[in-house]
C-alpha cells in the first residue's frame, strides 16, 4: 500500500506542473495583453504601461513563467487588484462557508443516492426503478441555478420557511443551519441524482457477477448476499465517481451561492469578474487547478484503500 501511495503522489507532481503551465498560458498568453483586458480599450497608453509594469507583464515571457511558478511554490497566489489583500487570505476568509456547503451536499448526495440507486437496481424494471430513473435523469438535466431559483421561489419566497438571503451569523448554529438548508438541499438533490445513476449501474453490474451467484449458492441468505457481497463491491466505483463529481460540484456550488447570495468562493469569483480583478482570477485559477490535481490523487488513493486488487498489484 505504501508503494502505491508513493507512486500515486509522485505522479501528481508532473501533473501539477503541467496544469500550472496550462493556467499560465490561459492567464498570460491567451488574453494577448492582459492590461488591455483589465482596463478596457478606452484606457490611456500611460495607464496601460503603468499597469503592465506593476503586474510584471513587460518582462520576457519565460521570466514571467518562472516568477509565476516560484510564486506558487512559496504559496503566493498574488494580490487582489481591487482590495490589495493577498488572494490566499481572501480565499481563506470565505472557505469555511464553501466547505460547509460542499460537505453538507456530499453527505446528502451519498446518503440518499447510494441506497436509492441500489434499491432501483434490485427492483429492476419495476415501478420503483422507473421512478428512480426518471427522477435521476431530471435531476441531472437541471442547471444548478434553475433548481436553486425554483427552491428559492417555493420555499423562501412563497412559503417563507427559509431566509431569502443567506448571510448567516457564524456563531449561531441554528441560524447557520437555516441559511445552509436551501443551498445544501439544492446541491444535495443534484448530487443525489448523479449518485443514484452511478449506484444503480454499478449495482446492476455487480448483481450479474459470478461471485454473487456463488454467494447465493452458499445459502447465506438473500440479505447477506446483498449487503456483504453485492453492495460492498458496487460501492467501489461510486467512490471514484464522487471524486470525479467534485468538479461539477464546484460549478454548481458557485451558481448556488450566487442565487442565494451566500458568501463563498462563488461570490469571490463573481466579484473578481465584475471588477476585472485579474490577479484575483489568476490566483483563483491556480488554486482550483492545484485543488483538482490533489483531489484526483486523493480519490485514486482512496480507491486503493477500498479495492484490494489495486493495492496488491
Amino acid at each position, binding site marked *: 500500500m505504501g508503494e502505491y501511495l508513493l507512486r500515486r503522489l509522485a*505522479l501528481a507532481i*508532473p*501533473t501539477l506542473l*503541467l*496544469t500550472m503551465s*496550462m493556467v499560465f498560458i*490561459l*492567464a498570460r498568453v*491567451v*488574453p494577448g495583453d*492582459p492590461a488591455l*483586458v483589465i482596463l478596457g480599450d478606452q484606457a490611456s497608453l500611460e495607464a496601460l504601461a503603468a499597469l503592465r509594469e506593476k503586474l510584471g507583464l513587460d518582462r520576457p515571457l519565460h521570466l514571467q513563467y518562472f516568477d509565476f511558478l516560484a510564486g506558487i511554490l512559496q504559496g503566493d497566489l498574488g494580490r487582489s487588484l481591487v482590495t490589495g489583500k493577498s488572494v490566499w487570505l481572501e480565499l481563506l476568509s470565505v472557505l469555511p462557508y464553501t466547505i460547509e456547503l460542499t460537505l453538507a451536499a456530499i453527505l446528502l448526495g451519498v446518503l440518499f443516492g447510494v441506497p436509492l440507486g441500489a434499491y432501483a437496481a434490485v427492483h429492476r*424494471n419495476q415501478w420503483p426503478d422507473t421512478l428512480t*430513473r426518471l427522477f435521476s*435523469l*431530471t435531476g*441531472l*438535466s*437541471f*442547471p*444548478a*441555478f*434553475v433548481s436553486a*431559483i*425554483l427552491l*428559492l*421561489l417555493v420555499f423562501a*419566497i412563497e412559503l417563507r420557511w427559509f431566509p431569502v438571503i443567506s448571510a448567516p451569523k457564524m456563531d449561531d448554529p441554528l441560524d447557520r443551519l437555516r441559511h445552509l438548508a436551501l443551498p445544501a438541499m439544492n446541491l444535495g438533490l443534484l448530487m443525489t441524482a448523479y449518485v443514484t445513476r452511478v449506484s444503480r*449501474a454499478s449495482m446492476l453490474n455487480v448483481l450479474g457477477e459470478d461471485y454473487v451467484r456463488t454467494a447465493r449458492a452458499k445459502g447465506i441468505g438473500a440479505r447477506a448476499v446483498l449487503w456483504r457481497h453485492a453492495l460492498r463491491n458496487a460501492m467501489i466505483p461510486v467512490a471514484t465517481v464522487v*471524486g*470525479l463529481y*467534485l*468538479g*461539477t*460540484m*464546484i*460549478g*454548481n456550488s*458557485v*451558481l448556488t451561492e*450566487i*442565487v442565494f447570495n451566500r458568501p463563498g468562493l462563488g461570490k469571490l*469569483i*463573481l466579484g473578481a*469578474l*465584475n471588477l476585472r480583478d485579474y490577479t484575483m*482570477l489568476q490566483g483563483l*485559477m491556480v488554486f*482550483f*487547478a492545484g485543488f*483538482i*490535481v490533489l*483531489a*484526483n490523487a486523493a480519490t485514486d488513493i482512496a480507491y486503493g484503500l477500498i479495492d484490494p486488487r489495486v493495492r496488491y498489484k
Partner: protein
Amino acid sequence: MSATTAVAQAPQGWVRRFRNNPTSLVGLAIFLAVILAAVFAPWIWPVDPLEQDVVERLVGPSLAHPLGTDSFGRDVLARLLHAGRISLLIGISSIALAMLVGSAIGIAAGYIGGWFDAMVTSLLDVLLSFPTLLLGLMVVAMLGSSVENLVLAIALTELAPFARVARAPTIALKNRDFIEAGRALGFSDLRLVVVHIIPNLISDVIVVASLWLAAAIRTEASLSFIGLGVKPPTPTWGGMIREGFENILDAPWLAVAPGLAILITVLGINLLGDGLRDAIDPKVRND
C-alpha cells in the same frame, strides 16, 4: 468500451434497438421539437424579441403575450424562441468543434504513444475533472464575451471526453495485425488512421457528442446567467433567467419560463443520448 468489440460486433441493429426503446423516442421527439421551434421561431410567433414597450412592462401571461413581458416590455415568448436559436447554435457549434479537435488529440495521443501520450493523458484527466463552469468562465473572462469566444470556451470544456473516447480504440487497434500489414505495404500513418481507425470510433464519438451536447447547453446557460454570455439585448435563456432573477419578487414567471425551456431541452437531449448509447452499446442495456 473495448475497441475489439467495437470492431467485431459493429452496432448492427442499433436502429431497431433504438426504436424499441420508448424513452429514446421521447428524447428524439423533444430534441426535434426544440430544433424546429428554434429554426422556425420567427414564423411560429412573429413578434420582435427586441421590441420594447414601456407601457406593458412586467405584465403577466395574456393572449397578446402568452408568457408575459419582461422589465423592458419585451414579449417573453418571442425572446424565449429566439434565445433557443442562440443557445442551440452555440451548443452545437461548440460540440462540433470539441469533437473535431478532441478526437484528433485523442487519436494522436493513442497512435503516437510514449511520453506524448502520457503527458496528454494526465492533462486530459485534469481537464475532465476541472469544474466546467470555472474553466469556461476563465476563458471568457480572458477573451471577452462574444459568440465566437463562448463557442471556444465551451468547446474547451468538452475536449477531454472526446479525446478519451477516441484514444482508447486507437490504442487497441494500432497494434492489430491489419495495421501492421498496412504499414508493411507502405501506407502512410495518416491513411491508416483515416481509413481504418476512424470508422471504428464514429459510433462511440456520436454517443459522447449527444451526451455532452446537453452539458454544453447547460454551460452556456450558466455562463449567461453569470453575465458572461452573449451581450444583451440578444436574448439567451441564461440571460433571461438572470433578468428574471433580478425581478424575482415582482415577476417570478420571468425566470421560470426560460428555466423550463432549458430543462426540457437538456432532458430531451439526455434521453436521446442515453437511448443512443443503449442502442449502440448493448452491454449496458437497461432492458
